[in-house]
């Protein structure tokens, strides 16, 4: 079984894993970081989005071995020094979550979206959310939260 090593939320993590282990399984089962969720088996729902070397990636589409040496940030690593990331704060302020299951993936996607496209408008946010499914909110307040966070982070 290959040994994979990576940095997760600033800490080094290393484990023997079966070659077929997905990154999301490594994060949830090996590291016990259960904030990253699995909502489908076809890489559509986006509940498992984490950052791999600064880019949003669906951690169900990647083998843990492919992330060997990478710098991973999960939802648990987003707040710094007890302070919420502006996107996390905006999701709460604008009621961008209900059941909370899609939320970690939504937030990680939104952080990456704002990094790539600082001048977001509603249409762009909706297009960019193509890979994240929410069944509770109708996206109305998620879009609002992302736009508000993007304004704040400008």
């Amino acid at each position: 079984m290959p040994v994979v090593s990576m940095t997760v939320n600033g800490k080094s993590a290393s484990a023997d894993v079966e070659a077929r282990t997905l990154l999301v399984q490594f994060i949830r089962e090996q590291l016990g970081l259960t904030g990253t969720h699995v909502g489908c088996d076809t890489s559509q729902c986006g509940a498992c989005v984490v950052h791999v070397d600064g880019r949003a990636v669906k951690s169900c589409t990647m083998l843990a071995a492919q992330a060997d040496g990478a710098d991973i940030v999960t939802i648990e690593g987003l707040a710094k020094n007890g302070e919420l990331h502006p996107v996390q704060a905006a999701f709460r302020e604008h009621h961008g979550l209900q059941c909370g299951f899609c939320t970690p993936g939504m937030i990680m996607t939104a952080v990456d979206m704002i990094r790539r496209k600082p001048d977001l408008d509603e249409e762009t946010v909706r297009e960019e959310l193509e890979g994240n499914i929410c069944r509770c909110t109708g996206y109305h307040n998620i879009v609002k939260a992302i736009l508000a966070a993007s304004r704040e982070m400008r």
Partner: protein
Amino acid sequence: MSDAASGEGIGQPVRRKEDFRFITGNGHYTDDINRPRQTWAYFLRSPHAHARIKSIDTSAAEAAPGVVAIFTGRHVADDGLGGLICGWTVTSKDGTPMKVGPHPILALDTVRYVGDHVAMVVAETLADARAAAEMIDVDYDALPAAASLSACQNAAAPQVHPEAPRNTCFEWELGNKAETEAAFAKAGRIVKLDLKNNRLIPNAMEPRAALGEFDKGTGIYTLHTTSQNPHVARLVLSAFVGVAPEHKLRVIAPDVGGGFGSKIFIYAEETACVWAAAKVGRPIKWTADRSEAFLSDAHGRDHLSHAELALDKDGKFLALRVKTVANLGAYLSTFSASVPTYLYGTLLSGQYDIPAVYVEVDGVYTHTAPVDAYRGAGRPEATYLVERIVETAARETGIDPAELRRRNYIRTFPHQTPVIMNYDTGDYEASLAAAMEAIDYKGFPARKSEAAKRGKLRGIGFSSYIEACGIAPSAAVGSLGAGVGLWESAEVRVNPTGNVEVLTGSHSHGQGHETTFAQLVASRLGVPLANVEIVHGDTDKVQFGMGTYGSRSGAVGMSAIVKALDKIEAKAKKIAAHLMEAAVEDIVFENGTFTVQGTDKSLAWAELSLAAYTAHGFPSGEIEPGLKEGAFYDPVNFTFPSGCHICEVEIDPDTGVTKIEKFVAVDDFGTVINPMIVEGQVHGGIAQGVGQALLEHGIYDAESGQLITGSYMDYCMPRADDLPSFDLGFTTTICPSNPLGMKGCGEAGAIASPPAIINAVTDALGIRDIEMPATPARVWTALQSATPRAAAE
């Protein structure tokens, strides 16, 4: 500081208490929980819609690496376990009870839908369990399937259950047939419409999951599961399935990632996990993957209906008659018989004064997954039928759709409909007027011609809906066939330091109860919101409760809390009277302070709380120490949320793509505790309604019974770019039947929106009807065969 001044009271958009754990990745969903020595379950499912099981050979699989045990239907039956039940008995018009086929936890000799449960493999890892399941040799005798709703009642159709000839579970009726026929006989005009209400697959984002455990020392079973109503699950698992006596079974529904009805029901997998945990002597974990969820979660809707509306020459409705065939799937699910009957037929009067209504519903079995309540449950089907035929009547009579509705609105309350319901209050004209104003109805013709200049087809559609929430009273639903009471419980525990725990039988899986329930308690007791904890979802903590569905948690769950708070206040005043040496009638409780009227004597909430537990300052023979009160609240009537949704669409005739340009929803929910949360509920409901109207369709192949739409590649979930931002408004009439005046908001969006959207699409296309979902392919096809009138417009 009073709650109103601090912005935490009733009516304030308080930010949610539960959000911190969800936005930081600290939620605890069932799949996040693991136990030492835990094993994993995988279910081998039927690849056939209908087959006889000739034999199951598990010997090779049992020898596979990591396998702990394999269970089949034979093991379950030999252990004396009962099957899954339907908790509502519907009686046919001939007086006979519905015809129920057995619903085994694991199939015994026949499988009845693709995904039906054949065997359970328990292994050291999920991968081991999956691999071993592949090695189970099942010898099937594949049989023809009755997978088509329209054909399943034919004499030649394959039979799902021998107990139900022609696959008919019940032939139910409601209303007055003779009066309806008489009204049709004298009608000036009769409008007819055939409608399909498309099958939907609920798709809460968290798949179902279970973690079953057995403590050999105490004989206590524990089941962590994705449930909307853990107490009902425990009752069914103990009293009917016989897994364990009720006091030896603990069911915990921790954070649950959405339900929409699909997590009300007691399913085979959860049952098997907790039962088998004792057999293998180790915890058993199971989490559905999405493909399993598509196959085995209870689906929603799936009706075929014929409706006729009789009008007089002035457009006044005289009578409505409806014949519906409702798909129940292969087995009756927990509440499935109630959905197309008492949750459907009773709402067919809509917002209208219709003197006579008569509805017949055939509930039928097919070789498809069970169908049960999905957001709205019967009421979306009723609203779709009523609002589609009213819109059609407007077009056929040439009366403006708003005007036709106005002519027929119920205007005096209470109003007894011909189909059981007694509407308590409402103002339908007010929500219609507000919605028309918000969408600028007057400006629509100009927008339509502007769109036409760009080559686009613009349409507008109305939906004036009513629904019934907080299903009740218990005695009434019992007389209609319910196997349970539909009250709710609450317990308020004041701690010696003055902070408060509230135990509720409601369950929150996205609705924000930890915030709204706390708002109620904080404002009533004058304590900060942060000092109130809402406890739910654990049968060891909350004694009993009926759970959350049918938009009942505000109107029923919070009413129970009000009752418990009344008792807390009454006892606290007695204690305060002793402590301040005054008569109890002179004690005033306001903003968390007890005062003696006309004096400067006062006592803070925390002082009183401590005094209640030290019991030094009052005669404990007369007043018991402590401050803890419980209550059960049984509603005296349903609540009747209502409103008007208007949708404006633009269709590209080249591609058939429908774009929702504007969506206005004006709802009357009575008292609103937290408008931010209520609006969120409406947003989500509308999105699911847009899904039904334009995108989503659960399709089985009519011949083979294979599920064609079994993944997110094939079943079109609404994405952010399929939806507009929504324009919401409220009008308010206070519900007279509960102490807070609340109605219920969780399902309104899903109930109201589909007819508004389809009325808009058919208006844009100039056609009578289009089947849901109105996909680009269907719209484009309709345009190719449209009448010259539509083409010319």
